[in-house]
């Protein structure tokens, strides 16, 4: 109700300033719940960067069972945030997702293990239980295990895979030797729960050479044929990147803005501030344009899957610089 009111108000204000034409509506589907991971968009909304661009943006929080690709296919959003592997897999299913901007330069994904479970290097994984997120987030893990030559189907000599819920309980309870974590989020939940950095070993996907591109902006290819839509996206990307850079420069304020927008009221200030700092490390290297080399590395890693690759053929037209070039230059 509150949000409706604010958007309505924003609409009225926008009308007041530029009576000539109404603001363009854009809806953005996040990949996960409202948190500092998406600070750039909330900053852009809060600081008026979107309305400066004459955009009326609605941000839809995600959740564990929201598949952004499904939402955009159903027309529930104009832009979605997704991970490259999942987006490419969706492309193979016939959904024409195109990356228009990539604010995240580096991956924040890692596998966090307990030292007392007897793990010091990836060579120790065999026979252990590893917690993994599914729902389209399992692809980087699967290609990594492939690279290590470890089976994930539960057969001998491989690893036992556990579908991790949306928390880090399995490692706290000792049900898994390792769990998937993000540098900015779950890792700190483990620390908050009482384990110390000395108790843990972390393997960053970035360091293992299996990193994939996270949290890119994707739209439907057919929409890009529409000039008006393209123009809208150019403005959207420009405002969003402005938001991101502002968030990097003012992490504490950005975290505050995120907290204001969290409808669940479950986030804590401490956690969000810390998350914002970690997120800044991941976004700082990007101006918003996708680096084709990063793309190719992701594709190669996904196609190297031996008998069961995540994607089977070289994707064509999965990204474009058209929007980011127009937005950033």
């Amino acid at each position, binding site marked *: 109700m*509150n949000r409706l009111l604010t958007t309505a108000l924003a609409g009225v204000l926008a009308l007041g300033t530029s009576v000539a034409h109404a603001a363009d509506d854009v809806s953005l589907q996040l990949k996960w719940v409202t948190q500092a991971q998406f600070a750039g968009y909330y900053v852009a909304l809060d600081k008026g960067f979107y309305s400066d661009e004459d955009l009326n943006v609605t941000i839809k929080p995600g959740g564990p*069972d929201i*598949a952004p690709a499904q*939402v955009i296919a159903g027309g529930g959003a104009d832009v979605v945030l997704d991970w490259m592997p999942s987006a490419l897999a969706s492309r193979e299913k016939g959904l024409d997702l195109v990356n228009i901007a990539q604010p995240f330069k580096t991956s924040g994904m890692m596998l966090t293990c307990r030292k007392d479970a007897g793990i010091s290097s990836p060579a120790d994984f065999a026979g252990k239980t590893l917690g993994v997120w599914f729902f389209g987030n399992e692809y980087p893990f699967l290609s990594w295990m492939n690279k290590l030559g470890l089976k994930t189907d539960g057969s001998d000599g491989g690893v036992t895979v556990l579908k991790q819920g949306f*928390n880090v309980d399995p490692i706290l309870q000792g049900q898994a030797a390792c769990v998937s974590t993000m540098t900015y989020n779950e890792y700190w939940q483990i620390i908050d729960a009482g384990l110390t950095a000395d108790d843990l070993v972390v393997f960053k996907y970035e360091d293992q050479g299996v990193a994939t591109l996270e949290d890119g902006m994707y739209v439907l290819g057919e929409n890009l044929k529409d000039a008006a839509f393209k123009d809208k996206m150019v403005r959207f990307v420009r405002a969003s990147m402005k938001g991101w850079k502002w968030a990097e420069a003012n992490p504490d304020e950005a975290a505050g803005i995120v907290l204001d927008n969290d409808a669940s009221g*479950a986030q804590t200030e401490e956690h969000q501030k810390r998350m914002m700092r970690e997120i800044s490390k991941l976004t700082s290297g990007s101006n918003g344009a996708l680096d084709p080399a990063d793309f190719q590395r992701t594709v190669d890693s996904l196609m190297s899957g031996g008998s069961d690759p995540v994607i089977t053929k070289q994707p064509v037209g999965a990204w474009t610089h058209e929007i980011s070039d127009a937005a950033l230059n």
Partner: protein
Amino acid sequence: MRSFAPVLTVVGAIMVIWYGAAVALNSSWAYDKAKRADVTLSFSEMVADTMAQKKPLLPAPHQVVAEIYKTTVLKKITSKRSLIWHGWVTLSATLLGFAMGTGFGILLAVGIVHSRAMDMSVMPWVITSQTIPILAVAPMIIVVLNAVGISGLLPKAFISMYLSFFPVVVGMVKGLRSPDAMQMDQMRTWSATQSTMLWKLRLPSSMPYLFPSLKIAMAASLVGAIVGELPTGAVAGLGARLLAGSYYGQTIQIWSALISAAVLAATLVALIGLIQNITLKRMGMLR
């Protein structure tokens, strides 16, 4: 007083078990922590620790009560951290879904009672519909409804409706068929039409069957609203509190959301009970 003492005893016993379980479940974490800090815990220190952990496996009752107090009384109702606000979000979806489910259920029951074809073909599928795991379908329902431009309260209410229409159909089919042959024949001697029979005989006689069904439907509707909030992300509502609590390991928050949901359910069911008493008394069906 006679009826309160046993209830209080049982609740008291549950509390004792709860506290005992809290100590038992949380103690290993307390010892773990102490071991890493290189101190030894006395028993009383351990118990004190298990009562006051930030993220206990099982929070002690007073921690939950304190959390509920903090998030209801001490927070402004409009605050996003207020449980009352979240309760309201869930309640509105529950009530909307309940109303839709009840309406749909009654219509379906009327159809089934009046048409043999409907009775034979629809009824088995009504039962089958309840074996579909709604949580699995919930995200898809929400996405599909989104695609046709429906979002916000309605998708959740649809899930509530899906769960709540079932008991109403079952109860009302029974209720609408409850007038005996003599009463029906009596109506026929006055050459009453089907609709007169429905309004003057079938519906009034179905009331004692309707209300128990409504109670079940209300509880089911609340479950539906909460389930609807789970997969749609931690946006708002008690389900979102549950999810966010689980996501961040905030067990105290999970329990306080659970208990609030329980209180909400109990209140709603009691409300229907009250309406039931008043209605049935007016209709002379209650001594």
